[in-house]
């Protein structure tokens, strides 16, 4: 009996030793984690998954220098379900893991804004591949950056395009979210400035049955409908509006930009115009290799924002490399990484060259105006490009104005 107890104690002591040893080895390896946050489930998961996949691919391909410095680079994807509460809860989990040094995300501005408050309170840097709402960077948070353009430019670009097509009357809808309402308001303001008649400005959270909303639009018969929203809602609306006999044109922001749009709207969606910050990957000459690698790894063509997410991740890895070198090979502090991300100048990505201004907007942002060419979702990446507009960020534009005067 006594002997057995001794054996038991010995075994336990051995276990504790082994466990302790493994723990210390785990601490020896210096782990750096890069997180992504985007909707991986739910109606917008097609775009959210693309953001995650591209970030994963970027880490796999570009973490070589960090590995040589003795770091293990891990990727931790989070699912924000396109819901602000979930995004904030995830952000709180994220900041409690000291190994997480950067976040790539989000897809939705309405989720990014509250989540980034949590990141910023903990010096965790965020680089967004897709958030276009002005308030992302207009809160002047030192940790919040984006590599895409802003809705004030996007809404105006849409209105200018409508005017250039000879449209004289528009009807504006939005989805009641920070993103949709924001871009729709900028569209409305610019459309009125250009002398277009705005026949209506409405917000709706309806996602399935638009019968009632379509009736007054038919009675007003605008030449074009602008819908500030995401494809999972707007494509259904367009399909129903066509079936109800609406004959005018449709125009929307980058929320339209997913092959799912073609799948949902079908023939009714052909001829729809959309402005986007993310042109199809085929328009970037440097992105061919990325597109091939992406397809090989994930078995599907990259969706919009995938290439942007790849660049955002690459830019972050670069900043972490410099930070790690400055920290003498130790895991760098979050604050250092954040300040180095903001200091990025002329990062050569596959979708362009990126420099951040003082608030985290890219100094020059591209807008593309495309037309849906086919009801076949597989043909989404070959939608014809009608116009390309380069806009300077408000801050750099103001600086250029000062220099000029």
């Amino acid at each position, binding site marked *: 009996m006594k002997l057995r107890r001794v054996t038991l104690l010995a075994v336990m002591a051995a276990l504790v030793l082994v466990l302790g040893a493994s723990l210390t080895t785990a601490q020896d390896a210096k782990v750096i984690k890069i997180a992504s946050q985007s909707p991986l*489930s739910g109606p917008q998961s097609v775009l959210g998954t693309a953001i995650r996949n591209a970030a994963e691919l970027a880490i796999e391909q570009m973490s070589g220098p960090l590995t040589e410095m003795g770091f293990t680079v891990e990727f931790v994807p989070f699912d924000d379900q396109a819901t602000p509460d979930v995004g904030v809860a995830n952000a709180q989990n994220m900041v409690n893991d000291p190994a997480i040094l950067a976040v790539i995300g989000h897809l939705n501005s309405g989720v990014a804004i509250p989540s980034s408050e949590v990141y910023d309170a903990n010096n965790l840097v965020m680089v967004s591949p897709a958030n276009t709402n002005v308030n992302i960077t207009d809160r002047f948070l030192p940790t919040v950056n984006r590599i895409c353009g802003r809705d004030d430019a996007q809404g105006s670009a849409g209105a200018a395009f409508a005017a250039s097509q000879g449209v004289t009357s528009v009807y504006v809808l939005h989805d009641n979210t920070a993103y949709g309402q924001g871009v729709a308001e900028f569209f409305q303001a610019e459309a009125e400035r250009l002398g277009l008649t705005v026949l209506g400005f409405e917000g709706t959270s309806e996602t399935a049955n638009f*019968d009632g909303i379509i*009736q007054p639009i038919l009675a007003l018969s605008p030449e074009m409908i602008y819908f500030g929203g995401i494809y999972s809602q707007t494509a259904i609306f367009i399909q129903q509006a066509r079936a109800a006999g609406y004959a005018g044109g449709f125009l929307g922001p980058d929320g339209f930009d997913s092959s799912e749009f073609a799948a949902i709207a*079908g023939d009714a969606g052909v001829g729809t115009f959309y402005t986007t910050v993310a042109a199809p990957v085929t328009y970037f000459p440097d992105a061919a290799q990325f597109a091939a690698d992406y397809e090989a790894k994930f078995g599907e063509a990259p969706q919009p924002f995938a290439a942007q997410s790849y660049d955002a991740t690459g830019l972050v890895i670069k900043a972490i490399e410099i930070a790690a070198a400055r920290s003498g090979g130790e895991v760098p502090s979050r604050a250092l990484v954040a300040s180095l991300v903001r200091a990025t100048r002329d990062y050569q990505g596959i979708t362009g060259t990126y420099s951040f201004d003082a608030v985290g907007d890219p100094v020059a942002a591209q807008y593309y105006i495309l037309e849906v060419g086919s009801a076949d979702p597989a043909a989404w990446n070959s939608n014809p490009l009608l116009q390309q507009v380069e806009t300077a960020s408000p801050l750099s534009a103001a600086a250029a104005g000062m220099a000029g005067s």
Partner: protein
Amino acid sequence: MEARSPADWMYRFLLFPLGQMLAFIAGSAFILTLLAYGIALLFPEPRPNIVLADQIGRQLPGMVISGITTGFVYAMIALGYTMVYGVLKFINFAHSELFMVGSVVGFEVFLVFSAQAMLLTWHPVLLVAIAVLSAGLVSGLLAVTMERVAYRPLRGAPRLVPLISAIGVSFFMVDFVRALMAITRNDFNLTYPLNGVDWARAPIPLLIGTTTVNLRPTQIIIIVGAVLMLLFLNYFVNGTKLGRGIRAVSQDMTTAGLMGINVNRIIALTFFVGGAFGGAAGALFGMNVGTVTPFVGFFPGLKAFIAAVLGGIGSVTGALLGGLTLGMIESFLNGVLVYFPVFGQRYTDIFAFAVLILILIFRPSGILGEKVDEKV
């Protein structure tokens, strides 16, 4: 039950219910049209260059049709709430998920049609009937399972307990379907393969007075389908032995049991019929809107519940009246509020529910509800 003449049968099961539906539609359309023109008198030109009366005139046929289609969908879902409430005095909050499952089943059935190239070769009526019946069957069986697993064991428990169980079932179903679709399709937006199919999507121009209204074929399918099924339900509840069983159990469960009625079987049957109507409505709704998701049941379910309360919960006719009225109110509000920039369509629900509260203040048990003693 005494033998009845064919003429009497025709009246009871065909003419009377049809007349009732027509009266509800015409009545609510008439009152709302008057109200709309009343508003147009008060505010002739709410926005520059917009003459409200002209706009209403142009929109009227479209608003009525959209109100009827939405209303029939609400009515068909509301029947499930009201029938279950009738027998058990219990609100099945998972009922909106039966509607959602119906819409997903309809999607799967149409996917099979599309894969087998039957969409363009088979007769549309047959296709729609198969889809709607399979959706109804699956949702009906699911409702019976739900009752057996989650509600029957709790039948003697305090009223809040089955209510919580129902909410749990509702969450479970949404996430289960979500997971199932993620695993099998890796997709979330389930788009009926009807785009480009003329019998479902080509608008039907209809000349009313001087304005052309474009009817959507699926709206006609909803209206015809709902009318047929409501006629059948009326016959089933009021003209068959099983229906008499349902009415008996809803009046007094214990006494009905003493009279030799198998109460458990009748309750299961009630769940089946209610669930089947919800599922069938889901498939019809799915065809009309084109794309459904596992969350699609929430708002129609909530509004149908409200329609059931509005009409008088426990009353089958009340569910029909409540559904049609609520659909019509919504449609008219959408059509008129748009011209008032201060309010706008985003406040449609607020106004719709304000009307509801007003009606319930004056008729607490709903428009057609009777004062029932609280059974606790």
